């Protein structure tokens, strides 16, 4: 029996391919370099800060992982985040800002996110529009609606309890605590991992992304699976929207969620998921998101001009993908 388990252990690493290992190694290296460059980096408060910052885009990226593995893409996530946040705040204000109002807003937000995801899925599967184009369209529509409802301004919540969701923290010991978004992000990551790795739906997502035709010849309902991936990314956007809009207790119609789609896609790709579909994993996306977060944090700590941070991020994305190509 010990021999058997040892064999399995070795097998595990044999099957642990470099595409996957790459992002983990990069994360470890970045972690050490950052710590050496500036010891403040290792402070628990700083680490928690990084994790909180990445949990917003990270949560969207988790949903995006499904879409990308299935061979699609969703560009509308940033605009959708602003739209859902705006609508939830409108609902909260409408119902007086109490706990009940917040619950109603959450149901509305979650429901709407899934319905809109379903619509996107239909456009892509039944309407046969390329995902890039379909979501480019919805991205423009969502943003325009956000701007229209707020007349280009801001959505402000009147609730005094709403901020407790996104701004909440759970204390661990005397001076250490975990912000709620971090908990939501990691719990959601575990759920997503289980769905992708251990359910039929997850297996089908890989199959469709890798060879749609073979999936059809395996009696898989391809359209249904694809549509579900867009519903999942929609729900992920709802979670982020809830965390961000409640933390700020407001949503800016012009800037909320701007560029989130690119950061989310970057996290997925850095994590080793192939843009061609068929390959990828949830923990890679988690690593990818953390890598992006550490880079931002380090550049701040090292006083690098914020204007240059985009360039560094871009180089890391390109570098990460290059390394993965080489290795595989």
């Amino acid at each position, binding site marked *: 029996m010990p021999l058997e388990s040892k064999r399995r252990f070795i097998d595990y690493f044999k099957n642990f391919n470099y595409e996957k290992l790459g992002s983990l190694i990069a994360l470890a290296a970045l972690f050490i370099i950052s710590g050496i460059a500036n010891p403040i980096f290792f402070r628990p408060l700083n680490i928690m800060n990084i994790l909180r910052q990445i949990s917003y885009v990270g949560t969207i990226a988790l949903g995006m992982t499904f879409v990308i593995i299935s061979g699609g893409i969703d560009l509308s996530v940033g605009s959708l985040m602003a739209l859902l946040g705006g609508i939830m705040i409108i609902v909260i204000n409408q119902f007086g800002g109490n706990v009940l109002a917040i619950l109603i807003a959450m149901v509305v937000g979650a429901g709407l996110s899934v319905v809109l995801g379903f619509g996107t899925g239909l456009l892509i599967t039944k309407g046969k529009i390329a995902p890039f184009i379909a979501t480019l369209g919805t991205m423009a529509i969502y943003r325009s609606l956000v701007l229209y409802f707020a007349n280009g301004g801001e959505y402000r919540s009147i609730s005094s309890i709403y901020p407790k969701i996104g701004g909440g923290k759970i204390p661990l010991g005397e001076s250490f605590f975990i912000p709620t978004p971090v908990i939501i992000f990691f719990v959601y990551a575990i759920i997503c991992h289980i769905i992708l790795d*251990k359910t039929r739906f997850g297996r089908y997502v*890989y*199959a469709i992304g890798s*060879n749609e*035709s073979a999936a059809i*010849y395996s*009696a898989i309902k391809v359209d249904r699976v694809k549509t579900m991936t867009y519903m999942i990314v929609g729900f992920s956007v709802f979670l982020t929207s809830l965390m961000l809009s409640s933390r700020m207790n407001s949503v800016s119609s012009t800037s909320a969620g701007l560029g989130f789609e690119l950061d989310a896609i970057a996290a997925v790709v850095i994590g080793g998921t192939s843009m061609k579909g068929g390959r990828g994993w949830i923990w890679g996306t988690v690593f990818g998101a953390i890598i992006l977060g550490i880079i931002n944090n380090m550049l701040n700590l090292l006083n690098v001009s914020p204007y240059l941070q985009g360039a560094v991020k871009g180089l890391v994305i390109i570098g990460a993908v290059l390394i993965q190509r080489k290795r595989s």
Partner: protein
Amino acid sequence: MSKTILRAKKINKDFAGVQVLFDISISGERGQVHGLIGENGAGKSTLMKIIAGFLQPSSGRILIDNKPVNLKDPAMAKRMGITMIHQELNLVEDLKVYENIFLGKEIKQGMLLNKRNMIHRSKEILKELGEEEIDPLEDVRNLSVAKKQMVEIARAISENSRILIMDEPTSALTDYETEILFKLIKELKQKGVCIFYVSHRLKEVKEICDVVTVLRDGRVIGEYDVSNVSEVELANAMVGREIKNMYPQKPIPKDEVIIEVKNLNVPGLVKDVSFQLKKGEILGFAGLVGAGRTEMAEALVGLRKKASGEIFLNGEHVYINNYEDAKQLGISYLPEDRKQNGLVLDMNIVNNITLISLEKYMKLLIDKKKEMEKAKEYREKFDIRCRDLFQEVRYLSGGNQQKVVLSKCLEVEPQILILDEPTRGIDINTKYQIYQFIANFVKSEKSCIVISSELQEIIGLCNRVLVMREGKIVAELMGKEINEEEIILYATGIKEEVY
């Protein structure tokens, strides 16, 4: 000037430490067709890719006109006059036929492309190949597999090479097209071209080649003068043991009908197809490529929309609107193109096998242990050769890939198994295993439909043969009628029968 144009000496090749070629020496002469045979994995394609510059040998030398050359890439090989027609089609699907033929060697007029000239030249080359009906302006995507193969051949011919390598050129062709290809090979031979002809089909090799080299497990077993060696001797050299009977004894079908198809129609492709299949029967579908056999099968299992048609399973009227319906009724279909439709190449063996039947492995989540157990059973049953069952199927040989697809088909526990080109591009040993499997499968009152362009296979295996032409069943052959001549007469429309 000596006749020898190419000489490869002591070629060794290893992939990541696994040696696949051992000290291989081979040579080619002007105006000679040099056959290269061996089972899958024997190293034929690897050797040819080395000669065509797609792979570099680990050691060894290649001489052309007695001068050592370094074929560091295909472009270099092309400059030396070497062209290769690959086993897998390497056409750009979205480009037109003429654009593919002249890809990488476009005819230009100043800075611009001379389209008219290229189209004209393409027409000439295709005509030479007896493929006048291929329009140079057609998108390659819209061509059948056989026509694509002919375009691929046209492309190679347009190179005017001195050395032409053909890797299994006929595996997608019907006998008719094969004949034209052979005529062409003979012409090229006359012109002094040296041709390397890689094949599984001994009969072809006997017919077209002058000398033949047999490879086994990466080593040269022998070089034979074709006129002095029999097919059986070649087969034995290839396999390393004696193959007496390729085909198992034909089963005896029961009288009960398991499935009856009435007036199946697919617009433009299948016309009023009706037939019965008996329990324990192996029913063959013969015909030229494009006769509608695949389309008929796909319509039957719900993978293709049918305009009309009734299906009776064990006497009961059933409705099959998608593949899921067929699956539930115990009808399983092995697709013609295993890489395109049969397999998810990025996935491992286990996941490919259970992709069609995951519901059987569900607790709350997928029971991966149970999946593994099942995959192990299939590995035993079919002798699937692999590093381990987590290996991605893209790294398996063609024969082993086919065994994986076959396992997958069995996962739905079919009572009717429809096999579309079950042995295309796979080695003799695996073929033999698959034939044995089919014969055993029908023993337990189950039935099998075999669609194949390889006449020998249809003749050797089936109780009854239906010949299709232009979407219609044109003949039903039984017993002694099942022979090559009869099938060809009906398939080409020379002979007609009211069926």
